């Protein structure tokens, strides 16, 4: 009786260990590590797919995007940081690969341009309003008596 139990125990042990080994292998090969997968997807949404330029590497089904996602997965698995991977991509594909380009001389117009235009437009608007303020009343059309577009006032 005891012998049989021992044999059962051994069998169970082997089975349990065996299952463990098989599962570990699967996780390794399919990159089914959810943490890495999540980090990979976050990073991939910041990177432009150069084959289909208006998609991110996360969205795209292009062959290159699939390869690059795999590349990111592997680099994360070997302990590379997000910044190191970003640099790796920029070294190969240029700043264009980043959806949020870095601030430097060649991108200054891109970053500052809209703000400059806004200030310019506001200044112009201010000047024009001030000019109108100084005009006498008869420079403007008289206000209409009633708005024909609003109902109940016919």
């Amino acid at each position: 009786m005891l012998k049989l139990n021992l044999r059962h125990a051994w069998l169970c042990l082997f089975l349990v260990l065996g299952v463990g080994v098989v599962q570990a292998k699967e996780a390794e090969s399919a990159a089914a590590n959810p943490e890495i997968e999540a980090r990979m997807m976050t990073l991939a949404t910041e990177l432009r797919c150069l084959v289909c330029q208006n998609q991110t590497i996360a969205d795209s089904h292009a062959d290159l995007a699939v390869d690059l996602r795999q590349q990111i997965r592997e680099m994360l698995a070997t302990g590379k940081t997000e910044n190191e991977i970003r640099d790796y991509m920029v070294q190969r594909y240029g700043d264009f690969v980043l959806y949020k380009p870095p601030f430097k001389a060649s991108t200054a117009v891109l970053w500052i341009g809209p703000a400059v235009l806004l200030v310019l437009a506001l200044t112009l608007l201010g000047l024009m309003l001030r000019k109108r303020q100084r005009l006498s009343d008869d420079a403007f059309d008289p206000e209409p008596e009633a708005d024909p577009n609003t109902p109940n006032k016919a």
Partner: protein
Amino acid sequence: MKARLLWPLGIFIVLVVFLAIGLKLDPREVPSPLVGKPAPEFSAPALMEPDRVIRKQDMLGKVWMLNVFASWCVACREEHPLMVAYARTSGAVPVIGLNYKDKREDGKAWLSQLGNPYTDIVFDLDGRIGINFGVYGVPETFIIDKAGVIRYKQIGPITPEALRDKIEPLLRQLNA
């Protein structure tokens, strides 16, 4: 009053100029950050002989071209006759083919059908060499100098004009 009327015209002309410039720019042509930098190292099997390994170092001391192609790539088919013709000209530099993400049999069949202009062909099954060279649209062609530095990158098929006006003068200059 006249100056006021000219304002919209002025703005219109500025817009037209910007749009015209925008139309001429090709958004698919992304300047490669690799131009002026050493070509990435590679070491991969030859397409024709799987047991032989080709390395970047094999080409040091020579001016050469790396032409990325694949049997599944339509534009490569369009470019290929020009490569074949170039390889026959006297003083042509060695052209190394990079068979990118292809099946070995397909790559070989493609070359036996269309002609093989390559001095040697590197087989890049998983596209890793392609990634290191920043390849995103096949065909692409790199000109690499004697020190192993990338000097020029052609994205998309080489046209007869590009060959005559850009590539050949650069090769002459590098070989001088």
